[in-house]
């Protein structure tokens, strides 16, 4: 098969080809899936180094599972999000996240980089607030509002009902709003931007 055609193949098909010994399939799958796995782990853990370990472990499990993958039964991404979340949960049980107040205040902005600093500050504030959410709420909010999964997909990843997904995301967003309420001006939002 021409190498260019790999990009058009589904994750399922690539996994099958990988299991037959083709290393180009692993390259395509890695390029496609690793950023999502790493990004998701980083959001759930709030720690880049730990997220790196989790991402590598999750991908390793994917390679090992490839020969047993049942085509068409589930989405590879759903399986990966679940494995990633489980690995993160194991780590979160061993430690708790950083409190919102512990985040370093941004340094005095130099002219011209204010927007960049503010963007970074917003990202850090959001991550710190996410870290304070209960694990399941954080997972649901990240999957829904950052990874962009639909409620049925989240339901499959978390193995809960669609109604439970809605409840978790609503409560998660409510808590995030409360946590970030006092920092609105600092993060570049006016008091009119309620929520």
């Amino acid at each position, binding site marked *: 098969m021409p190498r260019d055609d790999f990009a058009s193949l589904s994750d399922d098909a690539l996994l099958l080809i*990988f*299991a*037959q*010994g083709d*290393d180009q399939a*692993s*390259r395509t799958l*890695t*390029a496609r899936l*690793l*950023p*999502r796995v*790493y*990004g998701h782990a*980083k*959001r759930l853990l709030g720690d*880049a180094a730990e997220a*790196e370990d989790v*991402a*590598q472990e999750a*991908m*390793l499990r994917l*390679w*090992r599972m*490839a*020969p*047993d993958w049942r085509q068409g039964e589930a989405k590879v991404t759903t399986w990966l999000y679940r494995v990633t979340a489980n690995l993160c949960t194991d780590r979160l049980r061993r430690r708790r996240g950083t409190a919102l107040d512990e985040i370093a205040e941004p340094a005095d902005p130099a002219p011209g980089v204010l927007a960049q600093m503010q*963007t970074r500050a*917003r*990202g850090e*504030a*959001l991550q710190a607030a996410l870290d304070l959410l209960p694990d399941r709420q954080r997972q649901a*909010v990240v999957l829904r*509002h*950052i*990874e*962009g999964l639909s409620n049925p997909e989240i339901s499959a990843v978390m193995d809960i009902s669609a109604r439970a997904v809605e409840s978790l995301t609503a409560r998660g*967003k409510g808590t*995030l*709003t409360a946590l*970030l309420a006092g920092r*609105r001006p600092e*993060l570049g*939002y006016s008091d009119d*931007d*309620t*929520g």
Partner: protein
Amino acid sequence: MKALDALLHEAAVEDVRLPDGLTARVLADARDVQTGRGKVVAKPQREGFFARLQAIMPGGWPGAGALVAATCAGFWIGISPPAALPDPGGALFETGTVTTWDGPVDLAGFGWAVEEE
């Protein structure tokens, strides 16, 4: 757009920058999995009942045949014993005859004689 939604949207569209070396390590793992076990091949299908039975049978199918023959013979002798043999089944259900020995017991005849002075 509300502040929280704006924050979440910003995070959603942000490009994920992978740490240096992570992709290389993941691909190395993939190669190890492929070459470590030779080609990654599917696990063999679960063996059927007869295959598992054969695996645990001493002597394989010939042994199994002998076992079945012996079982049938024993069963047949049990329900229809030859006249020369006692019929414990018949005795149990009182449908057969019970042979008792009324004569003197000759232990010596079986080599059970106890030597006396």
